[in-house]
């Protein structure tokens, strides 16, 4: 259905590069010192509580505001003097769907298509494709004021994808949606992103959403960076190893001896027949299993446990409250 897929361009690996970004609203320092980059084709999440500066960052990246300090490059353009070029090549889903409710779905898409510089024929073709893809074909000639929240959000998403953008900004894409509509929107973002090869920057405070959709994350607080990296990299920041939950067939009396097994970093006894073991890495798991068997343990079940993003996020936010500086979890 879609003919345009943005192939990875080696000459422009980094589609967004932000270095020591600062922004002030009057006397209020909204962005303090933000540095991150987004690679071509990845889904990058800006994660943080309300007021962390996520939306302001998106506005700065689009040239809506001028930064007070630092440098920005988006698709090779400087938003300070080429905001129009950036907005021409990027799509955006704002926090509210921002649709013209007295206009039909097709009229809405036509309006934004012309403003994006698409030819009439291209707009017509693309409108039909997107309405079909987002399940709105039957309602294309209805006023959007009659749509449900989920339908409005889907139409706003199709508007964002109208121009086959290289880069897509999604500001709280599932905010205010019921769980069913939120899942539907998330699936659409994931599917269409893969079909079109679009680079996506998501602003969210929905941790589940970030965990499901994002390749890498930047955790923000009060306009500054708390941590950056992929989820496994961020997990390492709060816990250097990985945890295994082990259940024994029968109560295992020698639990304390588990600590001496090669590769075990720590151990927590949960019950006589259940323990949690922290190991240094995936590679240590076979050695630990061999060690447990060597101690005479009869393993009923062994399950690696990944620290959920929520725990990573909360620990990082708390560590920041305790005066720690920002972390960089990854090499990117």
């Amino acid at each position, binding site marked *: 259905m879609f003919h345009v897929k943005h192939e990875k361009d080696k000459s422009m690996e980094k589609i967004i590069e932000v270095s020591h970004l600062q922004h002030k609203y009057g006397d209020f320092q909204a962005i303090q010192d933000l540095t991150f980059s987004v690679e071509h084709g990845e889904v990058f999440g800006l994660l943080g509580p309300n007021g962390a500066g996520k939306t302001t960052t998106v506005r700065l990246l689009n040239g809506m505001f001028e930064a007070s300090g630092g440098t920005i490059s988006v698709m090779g353009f400087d938003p300070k003097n080429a905001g129009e070029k950036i907005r021409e090549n990027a799509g955006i889903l704002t926090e509210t769907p921002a*649709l013209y409710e007295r206009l039909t779905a097709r009229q809405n898409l036509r309006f934004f298509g012309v403003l994006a510089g698409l030819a009439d024929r291209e707009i017509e073709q693309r409108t039909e494709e997107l309405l079909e893809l987002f399940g709105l074909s039957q309602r294309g000639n209805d006023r959007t004021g009659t749509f449900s929240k989920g339908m409005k959000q889907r139409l706003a998403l199709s508007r964002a994808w109208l121009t086959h953008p290289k880069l897509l900004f999604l500001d709280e894409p599932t905010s205010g949606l019921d769980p069913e509509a939120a899942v539907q929107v998330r699936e659409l973002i994931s599917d269409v992103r893969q079909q079109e090869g679009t680079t996506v920057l998501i602003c969210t405070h929905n941790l589940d959403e970030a965990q499901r959709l994002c390749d890498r994350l930047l955790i923000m607080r009060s306009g500054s960076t708390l941590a950056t990296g992929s989820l496994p990299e961020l997990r390492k920041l709060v816990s250097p190893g990985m945890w295994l939950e082990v259940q024994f067939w029968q109560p295992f009396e020698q639990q304390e001896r588990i600590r001496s097994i090669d590769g075990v970093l720590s151990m927590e006894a949960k019950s006589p027949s259940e323990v949690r073991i922290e190991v240094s890495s995936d590679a240590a798991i076979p050695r630990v299993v061999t060690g447990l068997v060597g101690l005479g343990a009869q393993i009923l079940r062994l399950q690696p446990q990944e620290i959920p993003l929520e725990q990573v996020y909360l620990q990082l936010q708390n560590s920041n409250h305790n005066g720690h500086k920002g972390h960089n979890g990854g090499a990117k």
Partner: protein
Amino acid sequence: MNWRKIRIITWKDILEVRQNKSVLISMILVPLIIMVVLPVVMLVIANTTGSAEALNDPDLAIMFERMPASLSVMLGEMNEVQLSIAMLLGFLFAPMFLIMPLMLSASIAAESFAGERERKTLEALLYTSATDTELFIGKALAAFVPAVLVSLVSFLIYTVVLNVGGYPLFGYLWFPLNSWYPLVFWVMPAFAALGVGATVLISAKVQTFMGAYQASGSLVILVLGLMVGQASGLIYLSVWVGIVLGFIIWLAAGVLFFLAIQQFNRKALLYQSAH
């Protein structure tokens, strides 16, 4: 400047206005009352009684007394009844005609500028690649063009009403008087532009369509001033007065537009929407 983008912004705003009942009603009711109902009532009274005194308007007496010689020439050899009708509907009513472009342009501009913010659609619009100037011109035209067109159509209807209704009294097509030409083609568009400029400026300070519309409605005082000026014999909307008045209003509209363009930028608009 991309005129295709400007045209689509204008098209979208006009389409939205057409769906807004409160704006649509004012676009129909104001011209209907001013340009049809009131003159028809006056003509019916004059036709029924055939007497100038029946109109019972003390302002007319003052206007007659103080009328400059140039206007007497324009009115020619009219009899007393014809003269009363001409003074009332040809001169005293002329400023009423100017209420229309002012009110219509103000209501559409309020809908277009403040209404966009009120409905939270402004941000998506600002994220498009249209420049600030294209957005401003597109929106200004969406208010200006319908206001001028509706006023022109109203003028045509007014012409028909006065000539048809006045034919039994005049026996010939007496309207429009010469003084109306600068009023319709020079002063009226200037008032429409003034309404747009003022409303855009006001829209930056208020958050709602109603707030912007009500504040810009105070411009009607200008028109009332003209009415009082004519009624008291201080000023007559002759051809030359119309030309000079148009020049002044265009100048004022130009200043308002200049100020409005200065403050119509993405940063300011986003900041206003957020606060």
